[in-house]
Structure formats: structure tokens, C-alpha cells
């Protein structure tokens, strides 16, 4: 067990290194000069060669490519991720730590919505397979999976905030503000998990142990909840666990629509502004989250599933 965990952690380190290097390479392949972009974003009316040269000097862009990567990597090890190119008074670490809580909050509330809705609906769809309820849910699931988050967000604002006048259109600070963005984020996931739970349960229903349980004369509710649902959730927990980093990295559009001050908004701004240190740190953070969550849920699966351990 210990060997397995150590082996997995050991392989995660070169992976993170590769992520950071590839990210650095790709960002630097963009032809635009970040110094010039920084001057434009800072609304400098005339961008002269001299001004560009000064900003290049200020941002340390004159050093060779690999030297810059090496410098950045060494600084990262001491949690110094540099300073934003476009807002020199803000550090990247400060920006990330400011935005991360808002995104985590949004992701967690969305996850709660996902669990609270997809679990009972998926369960009922499996139990009442091919009933009118199942058919309606399937139709809705197809629709919501196909609708872009941007559009859903605007429709929700129009309907809930303006037409019904129930919630604020955008912003943050209270539980009222988080409802609409969380619903928008969770809709796609809810659709996926409803189908996942439904299909898992239907597969489990065909298993021999269900037949034996029926033969033993156990109550149907008991069989459904204690046996079928429990076994079906095994795969779902891993899938839901892996969707946490996905939720954190997948809120870009929603955060912009709802003016939610999180990582997605920071990321999109940084991409447009060629704010390399922020983009690099963002990619590194999200990469780390994926690696860490993957590791945690692999370990959970390893521990809970005897087949993976090769136990007899």
C-alpha cells in the first residue's frame, strides 16, 4: 500500500514539471510582446520602442528564454510566483489567493447541487426505467447538456432576476448571489451524473447478487438502497471526486457572466492581457489540483476495491 502511494507521488512530480514547462513553452510561442501588451493595458497613449524596452527591462523579459524559466521555477519553489505584468502593484500569489476562495466556494455549492439533484433523480430514473418520468428527465438532460453555459446564465438572469425579481443579477458577497452561478455551473454536471447513476444502477440490477437477494425475499426498498445504489455509487464517487478540479477550472464563462470574482475571471483577463506569470501559475495550480485529486481518488479506489489490489 505504502509503496503504491509513494510510487504515485513520485510519478506526480515529473508530471507537474512537464506541465509547467509545456505551459511556459506554449505561452512564449505567442508572437506578441508582453511588454507592449502591458503598456497597452496600462492605457499608455503612445507606445514607443523606448517605452517597450523599459517595460521589458522592468519585467525581466530581456533574459534568455530558459534562464527565465529556470528563474521562475526556482521562485515557485519558494512560493514566489512573481508580479502581474499588467497590475504591477499586485503579486500573483496575492491574486490567486484572493480569487481561489471564491471559485472554491462556487465549485462546492455547485457540487452540493450536483449531488443533491443527480442522486435522487438518477435513482428514480433507474427504478422507473422507461416511465414518463424517466423520459422527461432524459429529454431535459439532453437539452441542458447541449446548452452553452453562457446562454443558460443569461436566461437565468433574465428569468429569475428580472422577470421573477427573486435574486440579484450578478456580483458576490451573500448566499443570494451564489445561487444562479452555481445552478449554471452544476447543470451540465447534473445531466452527466443522472445518466451515470441511472446506467450504473441498471447494470447492477442485472447482477446475480440482486437475483439472490430477491430469492432471499429481501424487501425491494432494501435491495434498491442497500445493495444496488450502494454498489452503483462506487464508480460515481470517483467520478464526482474527479469533477472537483474540473469544477474549479471550469467556471471561466460563468464567472464572467455573473461577475463572480474568482479564478476563471482572473484567468481570462490574464490571457487577453498576456499576463504570463498569472497564466503560468494558474495552469500550474489547476494541473496540481488534477494530479492531487487523481491521486486521492486512485488511492480511495485502491483501498476500497479488492480487485485493484489483486486481493483474493
Amino acid at each position, binding site marked *: 500500500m505504502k509503496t503504491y502511494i509513494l510510487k504515485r507521488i513520485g510519478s506526480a512530480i515529473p508530471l507537474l514539471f512537464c506541465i509547467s514547462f509545456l505551459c511556459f513553452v506554449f505561452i512564449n510561442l505567442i508572437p506578441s510582446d508582453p511588454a507592449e501588451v502591458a503598456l*497597452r493595458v496600462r492605457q499608455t497613449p503612445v507606445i514607443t520602442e523606448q517605452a517597450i524596452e523599459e517595460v521589458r527591462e522592468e519585467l525581466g523579459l530581456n533574459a534568455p528564454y530558459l534562464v527565465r524559466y529556470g528563474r521562475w521555477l526556482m521562485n515557485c519553489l519558494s512560493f514566489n510566483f512573481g508580479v502581474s505584468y499588467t497590475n504591477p502593484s499586485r503579486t500573483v500569489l496575492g491574486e490567486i489567493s484572493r480569487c481561489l476562495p471564491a471559485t472554491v466556494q462556487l465549485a462546492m455549492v455547485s457540487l452540493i447541487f450536483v449531488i443533491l439533484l443527480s442522486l435522487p433523480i438518477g435513482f428514480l430514473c433507474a427504478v422507473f426505467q422507461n416511465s414518463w418520468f424517466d423520459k422527461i428527465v432524459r429529454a431535459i438532460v439532453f437539452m441542458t447538456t447541449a446548452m452553452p453555459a453562457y446562454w443558460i446564465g*443569461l436566461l437565468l438572469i433574465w428569468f429569475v432576476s428580472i422577470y421573477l425579481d427573486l435574486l440579484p443579477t450578478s456580483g458576490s458577497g451573500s448566499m443570494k448571489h451564489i445561487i444562479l452561478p452555481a445552478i449554471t455551473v452544476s447543470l451540465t454536471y447534473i445531466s452527466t451524473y443522472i445518466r451515470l447513476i441511472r446506467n450504473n444502477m441498471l447494470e447492477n440490477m442485472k447482477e446475480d447478487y440482486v437475483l439472490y437477494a430477491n430469492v432471499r425475499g429481501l424487501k425491494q426498498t432494501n435491495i434498491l438502497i442497500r445493495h444496488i445504489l450502494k454498489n452503483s455509487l462506487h464508480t460515481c464517487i470517483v467520478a464526482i471526486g474527479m469533477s472537483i478540479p474540473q469544477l474549479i477550472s471550469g467556471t471561466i464563462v460563468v464567472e464572467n457572466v455573473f461577475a463572480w470574482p474568482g479564478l476563471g475571471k482572473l484567468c481570462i483577463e490574464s490571457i487577453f492581457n498576456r499576463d504570463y506569470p498569472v497564466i503560468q501559475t494558474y495552469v500550474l495550480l489547476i494541473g496540481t489540483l488534477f494530479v492531487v485529486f487523481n491521486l486521492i481518488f486512485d488511492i480511495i479506489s485502491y483501498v476500497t476495491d479488492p480487485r485493484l489490489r489483486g486481493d483474493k
Partner: protein
Amino acid sequence: MKNKKILTCATIALVASMIAGCSTNNSTTTNKQEVAKTVAASEDKKDEADSTGKEELVFVNFRDIRDLNPHLYAGEMYAQEMLYETLVTITEDGYKGCLAESWDISEDGRVYTFKIREGVYFSDGTICDANAIKANFDAIIENKERHTWLEMMNLLVSVDAPDSNTFVITLSAPYYPMLTELGVTRPFAIISPNAMMNGSTKDGVKEYIGTGPYVLTDFVIDEYAVFEANDNYWGEKPTIQKITVKVIPDNQTRILALEKGEIDLIYGKNMIDADAITKYADSEEIKVALSQPTSTRQLVMNTTDEILGDIEVRKALQHATNKTAIAEGIFYGLEEPADFLFSKTIPYCDVALTPYEYNLETASQLLEDAGWVVGSDGIREKAGVKLSLDMLYNSDSVTEKTIAEYLQAEYQQIGVQIIINGQEEQSYRDNMKAGNFDIVFNISWGTPYDPQSSLSGMTAPVYGDYAAQLGLDNKAEIDEAIEKILVSTDETTRQQLYDFVLESLHKDALYIPLTYECNKAIYTKDLQGVTFTQSQYEVPFYNMYFE
């Protein structure tokens, strides 16, 4: 059995971590929530308030106010205008005294002596006299290389404060746009010397303390900023006592927030699209305002190009451009068709010139006379060269793409093939600067930088203009005249030089003016006094009030 327990524990742990995640988050954001409550309370108060005499305004911007250090360029200009003031202000009627009550310019145009207004205090209570102003200029000069885009910085010899009411600037040569440069927000806005870091501002400031009509009382990055009326303000106190600036990056959400009444005002060229303006043009709940033209939307033709080097081809394209159709069809009549490089309302630009009239027959005839004959595929040719041109535009701009597609179809009628080439903003700028284009979209600098700074920019390889003009025979004469304009001291001579430059550029036919862009605002019906100033980045909150 053991595994089941582990699975149960893991599930409980996951759910618990989620709940904890939320609760921890809630506790860490208590502060924010308190502030949000204040904002929410202010919103409620706003709703409850009587429709007359409301003193709080909720404004919106696509990003937060950022660093408001007035001597650097990283902050939002509308917010800097609320906090800080300059020696002079630029108005429709010319320059007006602000922190300087009056000024004298020496005969040779090199020495500016300002009489500083008495009794002006910063919002921290410090007096704003000539010494405070000199401290500001010293801090700006310390970081001189960052401000060399202002010609006056290159000509600056010294600044002095001989007494607390007199401030003197000496230049090495006369420079007529001097007062304009002193009047624009950055970098000559005045901050309290107490807010500087050891007399310097180039590495940041301690606080944002100015003499302006408002003070910054609260700011949460990426969420909102609150400005309240400055009790120490020397001028007429604004009616709006409190301004909350919310951050909403998405265009559609901003408009929905205005409809719901969460915000009172959306202001700015890039904050509102033409669709929104037309939607509310006849609305009773939401009002619309448009400014006088601020800048010119134009196409620039590269005269170094083999085909466009021929003035007859350029003239043909001038005649083949239907500006009225663009103004009405694409901008719903919100932007006026432009006949000249600068609107006649811009200083020095009311020059008697004959516009190139839209006439496809004339355009075809010009090409025919120049030896371009229609080939079998409908595209004109001359000596084996096809009349095919590349049109570069900024793909982030929806309107530029629409105009490009429209012109592609229009020019096809006279046998000119246009290959439209949309590029992301920075690549578009890079190509424009390097002269990698046949025809490119451009917008003039806008007020108050037009015409002097736009023309000055043509003389150096900074923007596409320089590259585009290199094929002109009279390029050297035009550049020389522009340089003379900047140092001219006599009004008549200056006007004559402007006449020469504008006439030459018009005759050279390398600029196809399309429309005059204007500043826009949409706002709730109770808000009054929504106006525009000479500076396109300023939002004149001090004129606004609620009915």
C-alpha cells in the same frame, strides 16, 4: 467489511470536506459579507429612497479601478478624474483654470507661470500649494522615461515654486499642446505629498489622496469601489454624494443589471454596443445619450504596396466606399458618416476640402483609366497582376468584421478583390506597426489628443500610419509641417500648417474615413445631467443628479 468502513468514512469525509469548505469560506469572507451587506443595504436604501433628491449613484465598469497612482498608467482614468485634479482643465470653450487660477505664457512660448489657487486642500487636510505641486512634478520627472510619449517631457528644462502661490515650468522650445498635456489626467494629476513614498511615486503610493470632488472610501478588488463626496473640496460640491462602482465584465449582464435597477448608469465607448442603444432609444425607463464625435473610424491604405502605390487605385476605392450605408446599416445611424480624417468639430480641422463622393461609376472609370481591365473572373488585372488586396482587421471587434465583409462585396462590384484577414488584437497591432497590410482598420486617438497627437504619431514608426505613408512623395514635407505645428506659437501660422497637412493627406487619398465614433451612455430615467467632456475617458459625475 473493513473496506466498506473505509468507503463509508471516505464518503463522509468528502461530504464533510465540502460542507467545511463552504463554512470555512463563509467565515473567511465575513469581512466581504459585511461590506456586501453594506452595499446591499445601500441598494435597499436606494429602493426605499424617495425618487427626488437621491444622492447615491451606482455605476458599472468591466474591470475594477486598479492602481490609482496618478503618475502611472495602471488605473482607471474615470476614477482618477474623481480623485485628482490637474493645473488646467480642457473644456469645450478651451482651457480653464483648475488648481491653477490663471497662467501667463512668456513671449517666446517657453516659460509658463501659473498662479496657484488659494485655499485648496487635499482630502487628508494638507494644503495644495505651489510646493505640493512642485513635489508632484519632481516625482513625475524622477520617472521621466515613462512619460516621454508627451513631447513636453522631452522639452522640459525645469520646474520651480518661487513662492507658495507661483509655479513655473520652463521649456527648451515653445510647444503649443503644452496646456493640453498638462490637462489630461495622466501623469500630471496632483496627489498629496503625504501619500508619496519618500517623495517618489514611481514605485507606488501609500494612499490615493487628491483634491478632487470625491474620495475613495472602500474598495474590494474585482468587486466594487465606493467613492464619497470630498468635504474639503474647494469647488462646487457635487449633488451625488456617494458613487458605488460595481464590476460586471459581461456586456449583456450589465444591461440586465441596469434593467433590474441594480445600477444607474453605463458609460463609455466600449461598454455599450449599437444594439443596446437602439433597443433603448424609445424606452421610457432607460435613457440614451450620445456625445459629439470623439474619434474617426478609418481605413488606412499602404502606399508602399505595388497596387496601392498608384493614387488612382486609392481614389477609386475612396469613391467605392459607401459611408452612409455603413453608418446607417451597421451603426443604425448612431455614428455619422465621416468625410474627412478628423471631424470638423475638432480644433483646427474645419478645413475646406471636397469629400470623395460615393459613386461606383467614377470608381470604375478611374481604374479603367489607370489601365486596370476586368478579367474573365470579374477581377481587374494590369500587366498580369490581379487587383487583389488584403484587408486587416481586429477580430475582437465585431463591427470591423461586418464592415470588412460589406466592403468586400462592395469593392467586388468594381472588380477589386478583397481578402479579409481578421487577427486577434495584439497580432493585428503588431502587423499594423510593421506595415504588413494592404488596407487596415484604424481609429484616431480621439479627443483631446486629436489632431495634434494623432498627427505627431504619423512621424515615427509607432503606428500603422508611418508605414502606410512611406510611399508618399510628399511624406517629408508632411512630417516637417507636423513638427512645425507642435512648436508654432502663432495661431494663424499653426492653422495654415494644419490646412497644409490635412489637405495633403486628403489629396493623397490614403485614408478612407468611415464614421465618426462617439461616446455613449445609457442610464435610468431619474438620472439627470449625463453629459460628455472633452476627455473621452472622463465620466462627469459632478454634473449628475437624480430628479
